[in-house]
């Protein structure tokens, strides 16, 4: 069956069984990957999946199912089993009917057929990145190049019926130099014309070389410049905390802050799908609502949460087109650009640190935003307006509310960031200068 037939078939079958609300999303995804280690291909991959996700309700009871077996008989049984299982659940006080149309969807604009056609040629892109890193002085290079082609078709009992088709190509290059110093470079695009493996390789190689022989950094408070990658990680967390589901679960420091100042006035963070160069430009959400652009934080003030129809009911508002059947999520985050070049930011700093990547962000208390995260790859001490020397072994240990309020400057250059699991939501990011950030280190590091 074609995707449209599959979604329509599920909708018809579930309604015939007696379901009240149905949303059926069928997908076809082709994912190609080249992984690099020690400047050599460690594995090549190609994953082809046809999938089906179904949300249905009966008597205010709700269930979500997914299956990877798309044959007609299997789908018929899957829907029937889902309907039966739904009947065994209690009614939900939070039940909200699926939104009803008519829905008008924009045409998918983040699609480039050349990305999939490049399947076997992806190795050439990877080679370009590796060679660029080595030329900059790296001694070995690792990385991953991912090419995705995803098609969706939705049919809902609310009258939604539409398709989406998008591509993306993502490259993460990690170059190593002497003393295992490392640097990362990224290139993330939905169209091949915006993809630049060589630049990602050059960035990684240069950072690795500059980071060689890192020194010790004492614990204390420093002004911190985050490059776009670290900004991406930070804003991914903020975007997740803006999900009304997370707020309702007590797992967000943004709870009870609507209309309040939650960040420095210079920060505006939005969820955007319409931008042609965005990486996850969804056309409709899982409930069939057309996605749109919206501010989460506007000039430092929390403007709104991200909603599906259920959280919208709880918070007495409207869906923002960010459903998840269970949990609303951001699609693409965009941080509004500022006025500073990186050099101008560095000049603002008397005693600070410049970090170019981070990982392993964990929270002691999500409600208060108490967290720490570990910088990785190149990091540098800044003294009296100049980047002085590489350092290693530090940890950012702060609270997100304090960090957002202490943003002092925002960069004017931005780049798309999405890599591995650390920055899962594509984010268009500038560098940030944040005042007075607590930095800790393990006893004995250095």
């Amino acid at each position, binding site marked *: 069956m074609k995707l449209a037939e599959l979604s329509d078939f599920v909708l018809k079958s579930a309604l015939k069984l007696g379901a009240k609300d149905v949303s059926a999303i069928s997908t076809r995804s082709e994912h*190609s990957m*080249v992984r*690099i*280690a*020690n400047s*050599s*291909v*460690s*594995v*090549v*991959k*190609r*994953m*082809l*999946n046809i999938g089906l996700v179904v949300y249905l309700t009966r008597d205010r009871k*709700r*269930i*979500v*199912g*997914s299956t*990877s*077996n*798309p044959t007609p008989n299997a789908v018929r049984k899957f829907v029937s089993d889902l309907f039966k*299982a739904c009947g*065994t659940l*209690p009614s*939900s*006080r*939070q039940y909200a009917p699926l939104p009803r149309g008519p829905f008008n969807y924009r045409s998918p604009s983040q699609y480039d057929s050349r990305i999939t056609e490049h*399947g*076997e040629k992806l*190795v*050439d892109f990877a080679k370009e990145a*590796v060679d660029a890193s080595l030329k900059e002085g790296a001694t070995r290079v690792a990385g*991953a190049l991912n090419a995705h082609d995803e098609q969706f078709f939705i049919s809902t009992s609310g009258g939604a019926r539409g398709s989406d088709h998008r591509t993306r190509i993502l490259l*993460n*290059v*990690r170059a*190593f130099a002497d003393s295992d110093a490392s640097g990362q470079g990224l290139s993330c695009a939905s169209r091949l014309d915006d993809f630049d493996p060589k630049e990602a390789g050059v960035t990684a190689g240069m950072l690795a070389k500059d980071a060689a022989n890192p020194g010790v950094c004492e614990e204390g408070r420093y002004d911190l410049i985050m490059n776009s990658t670290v900004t991406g990680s930070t804003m991914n967390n903020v975007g997740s905390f803006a999900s009304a*589901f997370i707020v*309702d*679960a007590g797992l967000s420091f943004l709870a009870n802050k609507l209309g309040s100042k939650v960040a420095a006035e210079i920060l505006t963070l939005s969820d955007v799908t319409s931008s042609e160069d965005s990486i996850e430009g969804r056309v409709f959400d899982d409930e069939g609502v057309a996605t749109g652009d919206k501010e989460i934080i506007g000039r430092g003030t929390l403007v709104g949460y991200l909603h599906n129809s259920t959280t919208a009911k709880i918070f007495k508002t409207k869906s923002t087109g960010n459903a998840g*059947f*269970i949990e609303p999520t951001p699609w693409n985050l965009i941080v509004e650009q500022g006025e500073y070049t990186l050099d101008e930011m560095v000049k603002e700093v008397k005693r600070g640190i410049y970090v170019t990547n981070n990982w*392993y962000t*964990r929270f*002691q208390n*999500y409600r208060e935003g108490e*967290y*720490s995260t*570990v910088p*990785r790859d190149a990091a540098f001490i800044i003294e009296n307006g100049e980047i002085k020397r590489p350092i290693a072994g530090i*940890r950012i*240990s702060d609270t997100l509310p304090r960090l957002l309020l202490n943003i002092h400057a925002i960069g004017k250059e931005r780049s798309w960031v999405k890599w*591995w*699991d650390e920055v899962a939501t594509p984010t268009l990011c500038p560098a940030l200068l944040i005042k007075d950030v607590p930095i*800790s*280190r*393990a*006893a004995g590091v250095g």
Partner: protein
Amino acid sequence: MDEDLARFAVQYGRNLGVQYCEARFHRTKEIACILKNGLVEPAVIDDAVGLGVRVLHQGALAFSSTNVLGKANIREAVSEAVKRARAARSLLRKKIRFSKEPAARRKWSAPEKRRIENVGVEKLLAELREIDHVAVKSGGGVKIPNRFHVLSASLEEKVYVNSEGTNLHSRVPRIQYYTYLTAVHGGQTAQRFFIKGETGGWEAYARMKLEEIIKHETKILRLLLTKAVKPPTGKIDVILAPEVSGIAAHESVGHPTEADRIIGREAAQAGESYLKPENVGMKIGSDQAYLSDDPTLPNSFGFYLFDDEGVAARKRALIQAGYIKELLHNRSTAYDFGLRSNASSRAVRFDREPIVRMGNTFVEPGDHTLDELLDDVEQGIYMKSFMEWNIDDKRLNQRYTGFEAYLIEKGELKGLVKGPVLEITTPGLWGSVDARGKEMGFFAGTCGKGEPMQGCPVWMGGPDVRLRKVTIGVRQ
């Protein structure tokens, strides 16, 4: 599960002239219920089934998967793998080879008394309601307004066939629970997250004793908001209870002994290791540091008897008397080290390649009671559980922030302290161990690694472990 399709894939790969071919018919079915603040969220049923194929061709490794299971699609999946392996040659500086392993033919399963297929969403939800009721009741004068519980039952079935004659069928049922609890009192909040998981049928649920645990955790939340005091800081003795010794074992010994990290295969994702290939035999801890990984532990969340390269599982001694003894290998890293695989290769779904993973990683038991460990501690911290933790990507610089932690004074446990931070290097941690308790505890986790990400079920554990004179800070 269709063994014929797996055999067909392997035969087709051989016909295309590959050195090696394996096919894994892999099904993961999970049902889950969610209760948020006492209210029912949609139940979830996820059923993923498909075929994952790996080929070694002219020194290049390729993985391909499909869930469209006709012979034409399988031929296409295998052909794609071979084509891409050929294309990889332009950037293949080092050929990949596998260690020689004996062919195995077995059907194996995790012990199961009450079939997991008979567990429905209504059963899961009924248990969650009981748990939530206990959480609400146990708060005392402190409110627990936010309670997020998830309970799931899953079944993983595989048929594995390779071109060397291995043929394995497996069945692993699992039960998993996790929760986030938020307590509020006097304008302050405290939070607890924990996860429990075992392999087994529905009988595993009773073994987890969740109501007792919830009662205890809500009591601790209350005490943290009403009684806890600032911890002492500076160089003091610390006793890590099993939850904390287990996470430390997993993060700073299990991960860095994964041989694929050591040779740089995960460098751009989960990172590398403080160990180099030549470091086997190096001293990293005290004479009291003994750590192992054992996938064959009965009921364990990381249980398996054969890995996803068809190699029989066994216990691995990672550190003995402070010395690095053994690394975790798959067939590729074993070849590089001139060894046999020790069965550390796992894939979590049909569309994921098998990579080096831990099973169940733990500190070995010693011979002390808790009283004996406390006995000559003048001033210290007993860290029973943690919330925030992280570690750098070489696994050298780690941090554990206590959730339930007690002051120790003159050999006696005193009241709760709030937010003690152990931020320490790996040699610093394992080098300061001077004694281990005799009682073991294990905790479930979903370990993240690989690209695409693979969340892999594991246990982490150990006994109470005493560290002498380590630096304790406090969360600001």
